[in-house]
Structures are given as C-alpha cells and as structure tokens.
C-alpha cells in the first residue's frame, strides 16, 4: 500500500478508547523477521496497554503458540524467509487440532501483517485459518476493525 495519505490519520478518540478496552492487559505475540518493524508494531500495541512478546521467525512463533499457552492474539508478518506467515499459521492450526483431541479447544486469533494488501488477500488468510489482516505499519482505524472482530468475544 503505497498511497498512505497523511491527512485522514488523526485517530478518532473513540477508537483509541475502544482499542484500550480491547487490548489492555492482553498478551499479544508479534512475529516479524524485520526488527525495525517488530519494535514499531510492538510499540503500537503497547500504547493500548497490551503485553507484547516478539518472535523473529515462523518457527519461533510455532514454538510459542503450541498449546497450551497464554497468548490472546498474534500479529504475524506474511513475508518471512524460510517459513512465511501463512505456513506458520497452518502449522499452528495443526497443533491446535492435535490439542483438541485431548479435549480442549484452542484457537489463537492470528492477524496477518503485510505491506501489500494484494499479497494477503482475504481468501489466502481464510485458507490458512487466519482471522484477519492489518497493513504494516499498523494504522489505528484498521487495527481497531481487525482487533474488535477477534477480541470482542473474549
């Protein structure tokens, strides 16, 4: 998304408050191989009171999200070397299936993070059982839309 225009970005006060309600105290995993992106995404989520942990690869994310764990949600970069975000998510869903056999239902909301909207079409996210996506860098209004769909139920 190259045409981020700077004018409409004054965040709505309402959204800020709602994001605070949704994210405060939540434990969130941010997965990105790029450490600048990682620290910026983590900073954006911490602003609303989330407890943020980071992982720098798909593999590291799988290790952290294998049930049982205490994460409320995960923001996953799509384009990473070795294992991309789609593949990592598919693996996490498989582990959740296995955990289900022992009686407990696990489904950590995973939101894709991507610089190009085209790259992460809705279909692809659905296919990998991702729960939504936000563009990177994270923008408040979009973050609210994505997060309110997956965290309002908790």
């Amino acid at each position, binding site marked *: 998304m190259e045409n981020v225009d700077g004018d409409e*970005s004054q965040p709505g006060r309402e959204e800020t408050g709602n994001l605070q309600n949704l994210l405060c105290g939540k434990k969130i995993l941010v997965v990105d191989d*790029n450490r*600048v*992106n990682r620290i910026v995404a983590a900073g*954006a989520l*911490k602003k609303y009171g989330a407890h943020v942990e980071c992982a720098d690869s798909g593999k590291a994310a799988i290790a952290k999200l294998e049930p049982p764990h205490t994460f409320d949600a995960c923001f996953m970069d799509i384009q990473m070397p070795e294992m991309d975000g789609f593949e990592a998510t598919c693996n996490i869903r498989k582990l959740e299936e296995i955990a289900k056999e022992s009686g407990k239902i696990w489904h950590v909301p995973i939101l894709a993070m991507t610089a190009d909207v085209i790259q992460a079409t809705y279909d692809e996210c659905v296919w990998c059982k991702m729960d939504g996506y936000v563009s990177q860098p994270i923008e408040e209004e979009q973050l609210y839309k994505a997060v309110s769909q997956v965290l309002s139920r908790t």
Partner: protein
Amino acid sequence: MEVLRLQQQLIELTNSLFQEGFLDDQFTQLQMLQDANNPDFIQEVVTLFAEDSERILAELTKTLETEPIDFKRIDAYVHQFKGSSSSIGAQRVKAVCVDFRAYAETENREGCCQALQQIKQEFFLIKSKLEALLQLEQQILAAGGSLPVME
C-alpha cells in the same frame, strides 16, 4: 533563551523534514508512541533502522558485484529495507525501494545499480537528519527545557 532557541531550531528542522518529503505521517505516529514508559523509543528505532540499513546496503553492494547477479536475493533485501523505512516513515527511502524492487523483478542490472546509489544517498541523508533531530532533543532536555509538541 538558549532553550527557546533550541526549541525553535527543532521545530524548523522537523517541519522541513516533512515539507521536503523526508518523513511522512508514520514518523508522527512513532513520536506519539514515545512517552514516560518508553522515553527512548525514537532513539531505539532510529538506531536499529540505521544498523539494519547499513548491513542491507553492504549486502546489496556485494550481491550486485557478484556474477551472475542473484536478483531474487536483491529483491529480498530491498523488501527488508522497504519494510523498515516504511515503519520509520522515511518515505523517500521507501520510494526508491519501490523502484528498486521493480528493477530487481525485471532483472535490470543498470536500474538496480542506479537505485543502489540513490538509496545510499537517501539513506545517509535521512540518517544524518534524524541524528540531528535527536541531538537537538537531547540538548533541549539537558538544558532543562521540554520538547515542543508538534502538530
């Protein structure tokens, strides 16, 4: 008086960075993330950005000098650079990254070499501007002043 003068300088520098297109709104967003809980946030982001960019520039230079040129590898590095420049709001660097990736995709060697020179120039420019900005902020704080709130 000293503080006032420094504050004025900081405002002018910041405004010029936006007006000349070095920075976009994302940098303003980062400034909003810096607070009492996270007082050195911008400094941290700028340091990481500079370190990673210099590493990427060295890799790109090496890759473009190695025959046959591995354009996929170039694309992967530029993708990294585009991501981090976008996260910090360095929009001129980001813009060159977009062209650079297009040249890498079409395996345009000449275009890639030109883009590399251009990206080096843009990177060192924004790096020195950001360092100047952070230094001014430090000076203001050291002189007992507070940072002006930018609109």
